[in-house]
Every structure is written in structure tokens, then in C-alpha cells.
């Protein structure tokens, strides 16, 4: 025990994380199936998926709070789970921030932050340092119950970072905050994590959050990894229809031979990534434009301020979503034309 604590203090570099063929099951069908994920030291990775897809389970397995039935997890060079080994969560050098912060309500901020430090380091200034990092040096003597939600989350982050973990896990850390506060706390944490260069994995069900924070995003679906990539990869080049619709608004047009280019109700569309056999062509709303014409009728206009989303029911086809500038000269019921203005589409196999 003493040795482990000692190594934890000395070994302050961010660690990489390797998940190999991981399967986790509670009594019943597996929640995670044969999942593999490589994360480089210092990388910020988002785990994105709908509720129940297994993302929290993956996070808890990495932390050691769940016991996988198969596969290995390594932090740096050290196998913490698998190959017959299972390192208890308290010995993994992993920090975690929970959805609600999970601050100890009976300890003041200072003691909360000091909780994970070895006894001899509790008065070494590390606590103050961690609190200053999150900009909360002035609340050290307060009880958690007297802090705002945003402050609690920042204290929780300071507490997780104080022992200098090799990997930091965040479990929907902003979901309990209201919208304005969420954006503010998110931006602050983002900057801090990038500055510190901590290897961070965070769970979210919010596509926007995943894209804004993540260097890379891992999309989970039904306990399997659907796709891993940069936000742009996922948005522009999703590997299947499910990912395409999950990470943003999508117009899908059936295309029988997705090679070269393809005829669609909005005109001829060049195919960037083709595939064999019939497929769906993915056209994002911003790849389309509304103009004067007589090809369809505007069903709905959704106004967002920075832009607007127009739903047009085409005469010879489906209803499509078009992103336009906010001051649209058209109204509900107007007859318009929809044209393709993008630079090429991805074909998704059926």
C-alpha cells in the first residue's frame, strides 16, 4: 500500500490507455461487447452515445468500479484489468469526476481536495494549488452544500486532479448544470485540461459537447464501438447511417450506384466516398440551399438566431432539412427550390 502511494506521487506524467476486446455484463446479456480503444497520453476523448449504450459502464470499467468478463485494460504499461489481474480502483492512479460531483458533504472544500493525497502531502500546498487551478482558492473553508453547482463541479475536478492521476475520467460532468453555467464551466474545464495535458476521457450524451471538447470522439451504440475519430471525421465521414443521424441532422437519399456521382431530388451530387451496391447518400442541411423556384413547399421554419433550419417538402420526394442564414426571405407555405451546394457526399451502405 505504502509503495503504491509512493509511486503515485513520483509518477506524474499523463498515461495512455489501452482497452482491448473488452466485454462487460451484469446478470444478463453483455452491456459492452468486444470493445477496443486506444488513447494517447494527454489526449481528450469523448465517449458519446444515447443513454443505455454502455458509455458509463465503459468509464466505470476503466475506473475499476465494474469487473469486465473479458478483455484487458491497461493504464500506461500496466495492465489493470484482464490476464487474470484486477487492480482495485483505489490503486489505479485514475481520477474521476461524477455527474453530481459526489463531494463529501461532511468535509469542507479543503478536506475534500486533500482526501486523495497521502497524509504527508496534505499540508504541502498541493491542496491550495489544486484549488487555485480551478479558480476556487477563496472557498477552501466552505462546506460543499453552500457552493453553487458549478463551483461544486470545479471542486470535484480539483479533488480528482490533486493526486495527479495518470488518467482523468469525467462522467457527464456538466449535465446537472443549467445551460449558461454549463457553457461557462465547460469552457473553463476545457482550457484547464488542455493546459495540464491530462489524459481525459469523458462521457456525454450530448453530441455538441462531445464535438466541442473532444480531440477525438468515440461513438458507442448498443455496447459496441460504432466509430472513433475526430469530430470532423464523424460529422463528414460517418461509417454508417446510425452514426450519421446520431451526430447531427441528416438528409438521406437512396442511391443505387454510388460511384462518381448520383442523381437525387436536389440535383446531381458528387460522391466522395463510394461503396458497392445500393446506399444512402448523406447530405447535411448546410450542403443544401433554398432559392426561388417551384420544386417544393416550406413546411416549417425553425429559427435559431445564428441560423435557421427550413423543412421543405419536395414535390417529387421526401421532406428535407436545409440550414440557411437567419434572415430568410421565405415563410411557411412558400414555394421554393432546393439546390445542392456542397462539395461531395458520403455513401452509406444499407
Amino acid at each position, binding site marked *: 500500500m505504502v509503495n503504491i502511494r509512493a509511486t503515485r506521487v513520483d509518477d506524474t506524467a499523463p498515461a495512455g490507455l489501452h482497452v482491448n476486446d473488452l466485454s462487460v455484463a451484469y446478470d444478463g446479456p453483455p452491456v459492452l461487447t468486444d470493445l477496443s480503444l486506444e488513447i494517447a497520453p494527454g489526449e481528450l476523448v469523448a465517449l458519446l452515445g444515447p*443513454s443505455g449504450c454502455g458509455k458509463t459502464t465503459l468509464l466505470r470499467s476503466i475506473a475499476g468500479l465494474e469487473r469486465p468478463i473479458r478483455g484487458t485494460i491497461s493504464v500506461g504499461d500496466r495492465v489493470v484489468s484482464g490476464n487474470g489481474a484486477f487492480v482495485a480502483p483505489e490503486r489505479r492512479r485514475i481520477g474521476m469526476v461524477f455527474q453530481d460531483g459526489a463531494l463529501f458533504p461532511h468535509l469542507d472544500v479543503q478536506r475534500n481536495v486533500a482526501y486523495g493525497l497521502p497524509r504527508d502531502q496534505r499540508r504541502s500546498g498541493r491542496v491550495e494549488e489544486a484549488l487555485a487551478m480551478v479558480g476556487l482558492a477563496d472557498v477552501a473553508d466552505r462546506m460543499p452544500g453552500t457552493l453553487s453547482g458549478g463551483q461544486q463541479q470545479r471542486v470535484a475536478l480539483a479533488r480528482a486532479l490533486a493526486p495527479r492521476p495518470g488518467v482523468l475520467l469525467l462522467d457527464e460532468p456538466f449535465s446537472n448544470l443549467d445551460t449558461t453555467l454549463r457553457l461557462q464551466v465547460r469552457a473553463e474545464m476545457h482550457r484547464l485540461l488542455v493546459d495540464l495535458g491530462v489524459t481525459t476521457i469523458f462521457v456525454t450524451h450530448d453530441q455538441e459537447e462531445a464535438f466541442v471538447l473532444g480531440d477525438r470522439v468515440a461513438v458507442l451504440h448498443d455496447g459496441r464501438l460504432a466509430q472513433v475519430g475526430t469530430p470532423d471525421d464523424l460529422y463528414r465521414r460517418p461509417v454508417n447511417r446510425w452514426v450519421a443521424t446520431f451526430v447531427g441532422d441528416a438528409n438521406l437519399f437512396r442511391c443505387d450506384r454510388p460511384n462518381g456521382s448520383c442523381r437525387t431530388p436536389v440535383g446531381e451530387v458528387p460522391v466522395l466516398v463510394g461503396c458497392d451496391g445500393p446506399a444512402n447518400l448523406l447530405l447535411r442541411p448546410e450542403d443544401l440551399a433554398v432559392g426561388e423556384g417551384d420544386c417544393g413547399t416550406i413546411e416549417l421554419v425553425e429559427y435559431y438566431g445564428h441560423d435557421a433550419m427550413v423543412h421543405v417538402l419536395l414535390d417529387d420526394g421526401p421532406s428535407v432539412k436545409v440550414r440557411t442564414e437567419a434572415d430568410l426571405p421565405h415563410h411557411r407555405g412558400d414555394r421554393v427550390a432546393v439546390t445542392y451546394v456542397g462539395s461531395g457526399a458520403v455513401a452509406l451502405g444499407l
Partner: protein
Amino acid sequence: MSETSTATPTTEGAARSRAGTGRPPWTLSGGAVLVAALFALPGGYVLWRALTGGALHLLTERRTLEPLWRTAQLAFLVSASAALLGTALAWLTVRTDLPLRRFWRVVAPLPLVYPSFVGAAAFRSGLTPGGIVHDLAGHLGIDFQFRLHGLAGAWLVLTLFTYPYVYLPVAARLSALPSSLEENARLLGDRPLQVFRRVVLPQASSSIAAGSLLVFLYTVSDFGAVHLMRFETLTQTIYRTRLFDQGRSFALALLLLALALVVIAAERTVARRGSRTEVVEDRSSLRIPLGRWKASAVATCSLVVGLALFAPAVSLADWGLFGWFRQRRGLAGLRLDWGDVAGATWSTVWVSMVTAVAAVAVVLPVAFLLARHRSRVGGIVNGVVVAGFAIPGLVVAISLIFWTLHASPFEFLIGTMPILVFAYVVHFGALALRTAQVAVSAVPRRMDDAARLLGAGRLRRLLTVDLPIMAPGLAAGAGLVMLSTMKELPATLLVSPIGFRTLVVEIWDTYEALYLAEMAILSLVLVAISALLTWFLVVRRADHLS
């Protein structure tokens, strides 16, 4: 931007935290099984003795069926009237514009501070010569001959001192009922009384049923009040035959035990069904104007609270003061000096404190097992502990006495403090378990996970996270056990070591010897302590909530 951002994130995490991290550690399961074995001992011994005693045929005898019939009669009457009284008071104090609502809400549950036998003694002594009612009537020239006894007496006394078991859950349920329900019913065209019948009553029915079943259990287990009222129920027959007709005593004890278990099983089923409905804390509940019924509503509340709370206090104070003045004037000495009172008080307080601490310590592993892990062992252990609560104190006492007498390696326990504390813990452990379970589940699973990830081992987590957060809840549980222990009559009477005299034992003996002034003084002390403790528990809980 995306449709998914509105999805609720909490469901997944909630499901996970309930499932716990797989199987409980064997130390915890083992500890819980050990606890269950202890709790099962008294009931198991009764079962074994009844089955091997060859007296089971007595169960069909007329002499057996008569006390059973009387017990059932009394229990049905008392639970029906307590249900009526408790529900009416709850509705009046929570849902109407009754004058002085807050006062009524404070005093309505207070009759619980009287042990039923103290209440019965207060009523009976108030009506006898020397009692306040008898003497006042005498001053008015009336020769007062009415004596309270038998079925009517037992029914009145038990109703008055058990209706809070219905009042409390029903009042809680009614005040938690969102007013939007009633407002909707009104908007959909119901008149106030229809709303009560169609919306409020169905919502409260499970609380009423659960409370009434507790009253039923209390009545069939009651020993002191029915004894004072000379109404021979099962407990009386068991007590009377325990020395010279043990076969009968154990057969009847088995009968009583079975009855109690059926009742508690029904109570748990009903209570569980009731808890499924959503509860929303909403202070702005609809108040129904009483109109011309206001006066009769106030009269009803005054009558009930007057009889259940003030009448016994006045009667006891009258006897107590009378005795004290008599001594001051040197007319007749009290057969009791302050040393006796202080000694009995001290014995009462410390034995109940020891019991409270022991009970909490014993049930803690079970609470952890139940709150943190889902396992079949947990369910069984919980059932056994709750059954211990259902078994009447008298049956626990008799079982433990004869078990120590007959189990030769344990003979050294006869008439010792450990066996008395053991009897109390078995009988009241369930009270501690219920609050301890709530206390353990009040520690969010994530709190424990957070501590683990910060490097804390199991012991450090228990000492620095779990116990400090649970402390208020555990203290409340200990307080409940303490309160019940100091009021427990039959177990104390039968199992106490020779010469160990608590307040209830002294009250019992002085009443049996008709030293009513002494009985009154001791009762007032007991009531005062239990009132103080109740107040602490209520005030502390109020603090905890705010």
C-alpha cells in the same frame, strides 16, 4: 441542434447504482447470516418447543380458542377505531382549515409517549376512589361507581394510545399529496367531497391499511393494558400458564407468533404497494373549508387529544401530587424515596442506551447488505429481522427464559444483563434496521466510488465517508430503539436480572400492590423521559430535513 441533447442522462447511472458491484463480499453475507441466526433464535425455539411438546392438540380446544377469539375481537375493534380516528384527525389537520392546525399537528401523535399499560393504569386509577374523576364526582354529591375494565376498557385504552400509528403515515401521505391532483379533479368537475372520496382516499388507503395493521399487531402483542383491564387475551393465557402448563403456553405462543407474522407480512405488502405511487413534497396543499362543521371538528379533536394525552397526565399528576403532599404534611409516607426513583430511572436509561447501541451495531452489516447489494441472502435476513419485531415481547421473553434454562451450555446466561439486552435487540432491531437502511442508502453510491478512486481502502471509506454521513440516521434509529426499550413491559418484567429494577418494573409492581401514588410518580418520570426523547428525535429530524 441535435435531437438527442434532451435525453435524460440520469436513468443509466441510477440503474447502475442500484445494481451495486456484483456479489456482496462474503464477510458481509456471513455477518448478516450470523445476525439472522441470532434473530431467529427466539422464534425458532418456540416453534421447536411447540412441535416437540406434544401439546399442539390443545390448539383446537375450547379453552384455547376462547382467548384467541377475545384477542381477535379486540384487535379488530381497536384497529377499526384507530383507523377511523387516525384518518379523520390526519385529514382534519392536514387538508382542512381547522383552527389551530399546527397545534393539533404537534399534539395529535403525542399519545405515543404513554406505554399502553401506563395509560390503562392512569385511566383506572383516575376512576377509583382517590382518583380525580371519582373525587370530583364525590364533591358534586355523585357516588361514582363506574369502573373501566374488560373488552370495553381494553378497546378504549388501546384505541387512544395506538391511533397515532395510523395518524402519522396518513398525515405524511396526505401532506405529500401534490395539490395539482386535487386541483385537476376539481377542474374535471368533482365537488370537494367527491375529490376526497375519488382522489384523496384512494391515495391514502395504503397508508391507512399499513397503519391499521401495525395497530392490529400492537394489540395482539399487548400485555400490560389487557392485564390491567382484566381481559384475558392470548398473552395473558401464555403468561398465566408459563410455569405449570408449559405445553399449553408454548402452543399458544406459537399461535400468537403465527398470527403476528401474518399481520406483519400483510403490513409490508400493503406498505410496499403504497410506496410505489409518486410522492411530491408540496406545501401548498388544498385546504377544504369546514364551514359549519368547524365547531364539531374542533370538538372531536379536543375530545380525542383530551382523552388520549391530557386525561392520563392529569390523573397521574393528581395521584402523584396527592401522595407527595400527603408525605409533606407527614400524614402518610410514600413507599418510595427519591433514591428509588433515581435508581430506576438510571437503570432504565442505561439499559436502553446499551440496547440502542447494540441494536444499531448488530443490524449495520444487514443494512449495508440490503442497501448496497441485491442478494437473496439479504432478503431472507431482512425477513428474519422484521419477524423479530413482529414476535410479541412476551413470546421473545418466555422463549429466551426457557432456552437458557434448557440449553445447558448457555445456563450461565440465566438472569443476566446480556440476555435482557439480547431480548430487546431481537424485539426492536427491526426499528434500527429500517433507519440504518435509509442511512446507508443516503450515502450516494458515487460518494463511495469517489473515495475509492481517491485511493481509500474499505476501512478508511467506512470511517471517513460512510459513518459520518450516516451518523444522523443511525442516531435516529438508536433513539427509536431506546424509546421502545424503555417502554417495553413483558420482556423487562420476565427477563430482567433479579434486583434490576427499571421504571416499568417499578410501575408494574406498585400498581399491582395498589400503591397508586407511587405508581403515578414513576409513570410521570417515564413519560417525561420518553417525551423528551421523542422531542429530540422529532426536532432533530426536522433540522435534518431543512
